């Protein structure tokens, strides 16, 4: 079986979110979406938009304020401190940082130079997007025709995204998954490995964060929602992200920058 992955640097970004380390403690960076608190003009790391480095510096400053030694922090306490201080990452920012790194590795420059910020209209909007590109790059922006196009499963490659827009009841937030690895059989994708930032109800307050899963391709001619999704050992309708994909407008897309 032939395998393709994102560049090592882009994989390292996923790993930094998945195995965030400070002192001797390791945990996955929790999911945080600013729509719950609606903080304005805040630090990126405290509105779910921070890079691993920014999150690292923020947690260090919190420890300094509390006079805590890094070496004495446990895995559980690290996760709790991150969550309690609203430090985390949302799905679109996670996708942005991974794809931005991939873009730079491919010598295409930073992602914000290739993205059309659809939410930024007028002079103030444009200034806002120029100052804070990551905060204004949501799932709808990734999924917009100006930024990406729908692709067939057989075309899929690492760096593509799976977007889920809305839901039938309108209560679900848009969501995005990043494809970081694809296993091919006879030059056709057989397994699509994805990563995303997410919080499921069963995660509780301190269990959310970056998760990885696999979409097993049974029939490449059928849409992505009709394949076998496995995440955290759960397959089928019990798999939350699969159930979510069924409800939403789900599509496999490729950013124009990677075309």
């Amino acid at each position, binding site marked *: 079986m032939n395998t393709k992955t994102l560049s090592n640097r882009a994989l390292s970004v996923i790993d930094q979110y998945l195995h965030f380390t400070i002192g001797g403690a390791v945990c996955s960076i929790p999911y945080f979406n600013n729509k719950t608190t609606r903080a304005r*003009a*805040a*630090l*990126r790391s405290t*509105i779910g*938009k921070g890079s691993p480095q*920014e999150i690292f*510096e923020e947690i*260090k*400053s*919190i*420890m*300094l*304020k*509390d*006079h*805590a*030694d*890094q*070496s*004495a*922090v446990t895995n559980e*306490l690290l996760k*709790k*401190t991150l969550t*309690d201080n609203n430090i985390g990452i949302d799905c679109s920012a996670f996708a942005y940082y991974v794809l931005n790194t991939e873009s730079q590795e491919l010598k295409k420059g930073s992602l914000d130079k290739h993205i059309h910020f659809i939410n930024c209209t007028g002079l103030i909007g444009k200034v806002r997007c120029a*100052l*804070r590109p*990551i*905060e204004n790059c949501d799932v709808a922006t990734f999924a917009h025709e100006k930024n990406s196009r729908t692709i067939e499963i057989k075309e899929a490659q690492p760096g593509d995204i799976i977007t889920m827009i809305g839901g039938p009841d309108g209560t679900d937030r848009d969501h995005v998954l990043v494809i970081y690895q694809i296993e091919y059989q006879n030059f056709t994708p057989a397994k699509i490995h994805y990563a995303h930032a997410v919080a499921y109800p069963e995660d509780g307050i301190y269990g959310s964060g970056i998760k990885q899963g696999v979409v097993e391709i049974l029939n490449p001619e059928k849409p992505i929602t009709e394949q076998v999704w496995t995440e955290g050992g759960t397959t089928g309708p019990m798999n939350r992200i699969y159930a979510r994909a069924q409800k939403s407008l789900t599509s496999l897309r490729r950013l124009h920058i990677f075309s």
Partner: protein
Amino acid sequence: MLSILQGTADLAYIMGFMLAGTIVSFLWAPFLTRLLYRYNVVKGAKTELQGLGSHAYKSKTPVMGGLLVILTVAIITFLFNWSRSFTWVPIAVMLISALLGGVDDLMSIYGAERHSRKLKHILILIRIHKQWSMRLWYIITLPWTMFKRLSVWFGSRTRRGVLVHEKLILQFIAGSVTAWWVYWRLGPAWHFIYFPFNFAIDAGWFIVPIVILVVMFTANAVNIADGMDGLAGGMLVTTFSALALLSWINGFGEIAILNATTVGALATYTYFNIKPARFMMGDVGSLGLGALLAVNTLAIGELSSLFFLGFMFYIEAFSVLIQVGSRYLFGRKVFAMAPLHHHFEIKGWSEEKTVMRFWVIHFIFVVFGFWLALH
């Protein structure tokens, strides 16, 4: 250079007050220490992170140690250096600022959490409140609500203690008292801003907002710099020493004595505040001494040298302004942490190294400011 040559005191006499400040504060420091530990005057939110590792002792170090300096200086000045012309306003402004800081310290420790409604909620209440009288009340108080919400942009969002808008008002009062004193009581010579090499600008009534701003900014700058064991105390010793000498050279005997007394009390405070600190200054000390620094400099007409006389305090304050501006505009930090001393601590400097280097840099710039003031 402003020089009135009245009330000029002998240098030995001034040095005597410095010694008196040291001795008196040393005598009652054990009493204050016992009091602070007995009532557990310890600041800061209690989190699980606190009490972990080698820095744990800091979470148990009491604040409000600045009372040692404030009370010593106020009492010695009141008993032996009281002058209706020169010392009562600096002491009054110092006490107003210290009172604000003290209330903030106490409320942060013993007070309940305080919340204020967001502007958006008030606007909604104006539309939907069932009682028309309450709707009218919300409309009438809307400017006040707006001021409260806007003031959050100028300070940290605290849940306990004095809120930002209350701090601003009280500091504005302290600044206004100083401005009134400078503009109406000291006389036309103090309407000028004196620059080195015999250059002066008549600021006229514009000196009033300048003085208010300088007092407010300096008080907060010292408050910001008070974040490591020995840091603010050591730098204040240098600054007030230079001020004492400048006041004496310019012929302001009472101010020179006041500054010398402050240096003496600060020396004792710094002795107890050096790592590992027995107590921390707290807002009561830092806001009071910051205001005193500004007032005493204005009183001797050395406004243009103030930036260098309080160099590291202003640098620390500017580091916070830059950090906050960057956070609002870009959502990013310029420094790993603000104020600046914490940036270096995060970058790996030990606390001792940071404090001593800041002392040295501050000393160099104070000497430069002193040199400028002599020209």
